[in-house]
């Protein structure tokens, strides 16, 4: 089960804007193994969604462009494929679940129609057979009374139900990998818990890998086996989930973990959180050297001039910081 399914190598995706060139993804490397969940975590603008769109080759061109790199999926570099070949991959071997289930479902078509469309686009099956499959999928994702739901429109479903439909569609062609981009961010906590349970169960049943993109460290801790932390278009820390949460090494990761209010630790007397000072620098005007240096308590001369490399601090725990040279 432990072979590599997806390997992203030295990926660069840039956008041309009026303000200048935005290096949204600026040289990232990571792998997703078969059957595992890799968490990609970071704050808005760190490049995590652009990474997923680059893998799917869904970057709008112009203004965006994948400048260089490789996306090797199942032994094949997706960036070298023709668009027609790519279309066979999307929704078939790799499928996506987005944040907003209302905008990613078509409001004027019935749920059933939308699921059938995916199934019949990728598999040569009769309508009746596709219908049975759709029904079976809705049952698997825990939608009560699935036969009735097939004939309903998205607006008739709650947010949690819509996300279940999205998951059913994503699984309809038995993908090898599901990219889930903030799949539960728009949902209430109790519904989020249901959807996360469901995703874990389906991962077991279908044996798919999940690339989970989120800003929520709690969700990552509950779902992922390995984690990549992104900041200004680069991976700054890459480790197993236990290493990352128990012994975070990069000052940014440490800062992030300290700045979330806890659910079980005693409150600090003054009710003050250890916030990371400052804000994320603009991507069109990144500082020289380490892009985190202005917010970092440990920064020294070298951080001002040279971009840090990824250092291995032990058993594949990678940190992009000069402290670990």
């Amino acid at each position: 089960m432990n072979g590599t399914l997806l390997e992203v190598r030295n990926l660069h995706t840039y956008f041309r804007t009026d303000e200048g060139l935005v290096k949204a993804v600026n040289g990232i490397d990571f792998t997703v193994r078969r059957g595992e969940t890799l968490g990609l975590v970071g704050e808005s603008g760190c490049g995590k969604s652009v990474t997923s769109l680059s893998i799917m080759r869904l970057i709008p061109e112009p203004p965006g462009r994948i400048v260089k790199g490789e996306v090797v999926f199942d032994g094949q570099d997706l960036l070298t494929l023709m668009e027609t070949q790519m279309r066979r991959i999307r929704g078939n071997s790799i499928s996506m679940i987005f944040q907003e289930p209302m905008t990613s479902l078509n409001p004027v078509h019935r749920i059933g129609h939308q699921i059938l469309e995916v199934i019949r686009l990728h598999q040569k099956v009769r309508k009746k057979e596709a219908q049975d499959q759709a029904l079976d999928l809705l049952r698997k994702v825990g939608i009560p009374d699935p036969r009735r739901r097939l004939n309903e429109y998205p607006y008739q479903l709650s947010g949690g139900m819509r996300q279940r439909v999205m998951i059913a569609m994503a699984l309809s062609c038995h993908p090898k990998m599901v990219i889930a981009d903030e799949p539960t961010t728009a949902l209430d906590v109790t519904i989020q818990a249901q959807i996360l349970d469901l995703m874990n169960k389906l991962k077991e049943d279908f044996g798919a890998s999940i690339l989970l993109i989120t800003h929520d460290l709690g969700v990552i801790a509950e779902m992922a086996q390995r984690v990549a932390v992104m900041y200004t278009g680069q991976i700054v820390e890459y480790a197993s989930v236990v290493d990352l949460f128990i012994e975070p090494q990069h000052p940014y990761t440490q800062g992030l973990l300290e700045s979330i209010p806890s659910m079980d630790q005693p409150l600090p007397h003054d009710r003050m959180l250890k916030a990371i000072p400052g804000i994320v620098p603009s991507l069109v005007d990144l500082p020289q050297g380490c892009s985190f240096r202005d917010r970092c308590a440990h920064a020294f001369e070298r951080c001002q001039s040279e971009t840090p490399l990824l250092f291995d601090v032990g058993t594949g725990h990678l940190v992009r910081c000069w402290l670990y040279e």
Partner: protein
Amino acid sequence: MSEDYLLIVEGLKKYFPVNGGFLNRKSVLVKAVDGVDLKVKKGETYGLVGESGCGKTTLGRCILRLDEPTEGRVFFDGHDILAYDRRAMRELRRHMQIIFQDPYSSLDPRKTVGQIIGEAFRVHKILSKEERRARLDELMGVVGLRPEQIQGYPHEFSGGQRQRICVARALALNPKLVIADEPVSALDVSIQAQILNLLVELQHRYALTYIFISHDLSVVRHICDRVAVMYLGRIVELGDQQQLYSRPLHPYTKALLSAVPVANPLKKKEAVRLEGDVPSPINPPSGCTFHPRCECRKEVCVREAPSMEEIERRHWAACHFPKS
């Protein structure tokens, strides 16, 4: 037990009519807030938590009379403010302010920061020109913005800075009560911590009373002294933060707390999972409105709505079978 309450709300209800059916002729009521009592002490942070549609925002808006309550009474500093006319209400609003969730849509894009924060002085016709100038500079410093940024327009600021502008605007007239409606939900975690720290700091400095509305249970735990949990327009549990989080009484609170993902992969929690969705507030279930999703429901829960009882000292719950 004579405690100093700044705000007392009694039996507050807010029903919104919605039209439906053929040619919108059928009118039904959404019971957004359905009988809420609360007492907020001077200087405390009172948390209102619940999931979307539970009525927490409507409750906040009714307290400020941004929405007119359908029924109930609101006492601010001992005065029944629902009896106030427009003028008296405007005068009163100096003392009660609100901070909204979205720092993008709550700032007028065509006004400078100075105009946005200073608008209150204009509306209330207070302070001379020089005094306004000085007060503006002071406010900018208090919320951590540079004085020269006063000439900037909202689009020049990041989300966190915009929320600082909103905080400055809310504080301009030295209010007693600030209602913060999801003030950090739109912000990234590292910025969220900065704004929470700012709110705590300002509370000490100006002896503010907060009503903190949020769906984020860890943020509420961090910042609130007392917490009320809302479900379908009603408060189902109320207690001191520490009690409520360590010994929740209502099964809904229990489920809510257990649903929060914890940033610790080694911690295995006992999972209490709720089935199904929140029912519609148009046609809420009979008896206890939580009964269709409750794992410990009995026959009585379907028939009778439970009342708020003090189950342990200073800890109330509306449940027939509270777990103590």
